[in-house]
């Protein structure tokens, strides 16, 4: 279950990781092989706002045809990274690259192949959806009308209404349409599903899959793991401006501390389970055994079955728990602190 090799070694501690190119080596080689540049690359990208750190030594690539999710609590540096990629922010040091070109030195035409959805979306309120999209299309010097109509239909968005009359969800839909309408090769999306109802979210995810299937790349941010877990090929976790981990969703999950509740027909002794690899803690309360597990559960399940287990309930790890596992190696005392930070 653990995808070995994605991460060089077990737990990674914040701060050091910025310079370590996790999984990057593999990707780089593959790209050298077929001679193409990664769609997106950050090379030790650093942004300081005075004394505050936006991002610190971020190194990350998004391959052509890949969806990478940028996860982290508020203030982790996700938006800073994405805005730097679009050239809105100049890096303090390091570089951000699109298709191999430095975004600060390349001309504005570099952004022609990028669709961007800002985290705090503000649109011209006095325009109708159609006029707004037409304005952007003209500035892109690209005829996007047909594509915009298709997207609006799929997202069930009325383009004849004024932006200031739109609900938050509908405004977000308009934001999605303007990001996709020129059929960009690269999508940079900051919390794209915020405000979208579940039905529209599903359609949006479908759009992303189609985009990937057509060879497009995506870098999207979120603070909810569940939002990106079934979409992203890889997940990058940011905290305090540093890259904590870059791995597949499965690998991330398996690294997190999960809580298992096992129900036996007879009172059970927790000691029978504490020696199993991966079991961090086990407490018994009459027939119920509660275990905290990292990694594979095979041995735990095998032994429970021997003891006649009736049911197993598993709590899927949340992003917070994934963080915990990464930062503290599952130290439960740190959990409360972490939750407070995340709250």
């Amino acid at each position: 279950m653990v995808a070995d090799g994605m991460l060089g070694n077990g737990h990674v501690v914040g701060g050091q990781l910025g310079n370590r190119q996790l999984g990057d080596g593999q990707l780089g080689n593959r790209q050298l092989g077929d001679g193409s540049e990664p769609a997106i690359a950050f090379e030790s990208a650093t942004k300081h706002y005075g004394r505050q750190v936006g991002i610190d030594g971020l190194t990350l690539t998004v391959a052509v045809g890949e969806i990478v999710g940028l996860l982290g609590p508020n203030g982790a540096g996700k938006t800073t990274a994405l805005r730097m990629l679009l050239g809105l922010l100049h890096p303090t040091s390091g570089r951000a690259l699109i298709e191999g070109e430095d975004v600060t030195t390349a001309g504005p035409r570099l952004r022609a192949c990028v669709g961007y959805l800002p985290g705090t979306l503000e649109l011209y309120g006095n325009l109708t959806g159609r006029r707004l999209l037409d304005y952007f299309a003209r500035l892109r010097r690209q005829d996007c009308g047909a594509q915009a109509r298709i997207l609006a239909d799929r997202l069930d968005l009325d383009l004849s209404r004024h932006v200031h009359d739109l609900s938050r969800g509908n405004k977000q839909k308009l934001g999605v349409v303007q990001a996709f309408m020129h059929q960009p090769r690269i999508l940079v999306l900051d919390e794209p599903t915020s405000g979208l109802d579940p039905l529209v979210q599903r359609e949006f995810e479908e759009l992303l899959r189609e985009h990937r299937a057509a060879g497009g790349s995506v870098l999207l941010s979120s603070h909810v793991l569940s939002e990106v877990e079934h979409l992203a090929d890889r997940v990058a976790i940011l905290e305090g401006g540093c890259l904590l981990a870059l791995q597949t969703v499965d690998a991330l999950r398996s690294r997190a501390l999960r809580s298992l509740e096992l129900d036996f027909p007879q009172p059970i002794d927790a000691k029978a389970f504490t020696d199993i690899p991966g079991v961090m803690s086990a407490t018994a309360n009459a027939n119920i055994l509660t275990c905290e597990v990292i990694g594979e559960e095979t041995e735990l399940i095998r032994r429970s079955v021997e003891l006649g287990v009736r049911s197993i309930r598993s709590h899927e790890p949340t992003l917070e728990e994934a963080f915990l596992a990464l930062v503290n190696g599952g130290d439960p005392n740190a959990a409360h602190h972490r939750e407070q930070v995340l709250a």
Partner: protein
Amino acid sequence: MLLTIANRSWRDHWKAILAWGLGLIGIAAVQLSVYPSVRDTATSMDQFINQFPEPLKVMFRISDYTSGPGYLSVELFSLMVPLIFIAVGASWGASATAAEEENGTADLLFTLPISRASVLTARMVATVAVLIVLALALTATLAIGVQLLDMQVATERLLAASLTSALLGLLFSGVGFIIGAVTGKKGAALGVSIGIALTAYLLFSLAPLVSGLEDALPLNPFQWSVGSNAISEGWNPGYLLRLALVALALYAGSILALQRRDITS
């Protein structure tokens, strides 16, 4: 593409443009309508003005009040009209990019495949056009009034005076552009522009009375515009060139400043 952005600015602000235009026309019309009674009482009016304390006459540059050009100069082109052009220019300059940064639309505008310089240039084109249109509207109004009231002022002089005033507005739009580009704050840009304008006006007004200030007059933009007394003396190419060059330099500076800056979110 420049025109697409400029066109958007005009459409977004057509009500304000119309209001300023009507304001200018209205003020001109009111002042023109009073002129016949001034002329009819020219002799007593001249006596009355002669009783004004000398500093006041010097400060407001009142001479020859009852003649057509003299009247228009005092009532319109020495303060009211320049102030309106400054207000228009400074507000267009201040909101050129800072307004979009403040309301958050800059995040999308500046991630389109167009340079920040192009966006600024388009907004400058829009500002210049608005000032020219307002100057032409004023010229037209005055030309009609002058004709009707037989004020003996050539239309070309009216045009010269209007455009010379508009150029002062252009200069202060440049101040708005550059402060807006440096700070990203519309309020700051507008405040600084108006503040500088009022200070410059004060220095210009007091210059004839205070010897030290007189030496600084050649550096004062009000001297280049109001001081050229275009309605009586016509175009002053030297002064016009100074106004235009300073405006251009401020525009160029604002482009440099915005390119170096992070866009506020």
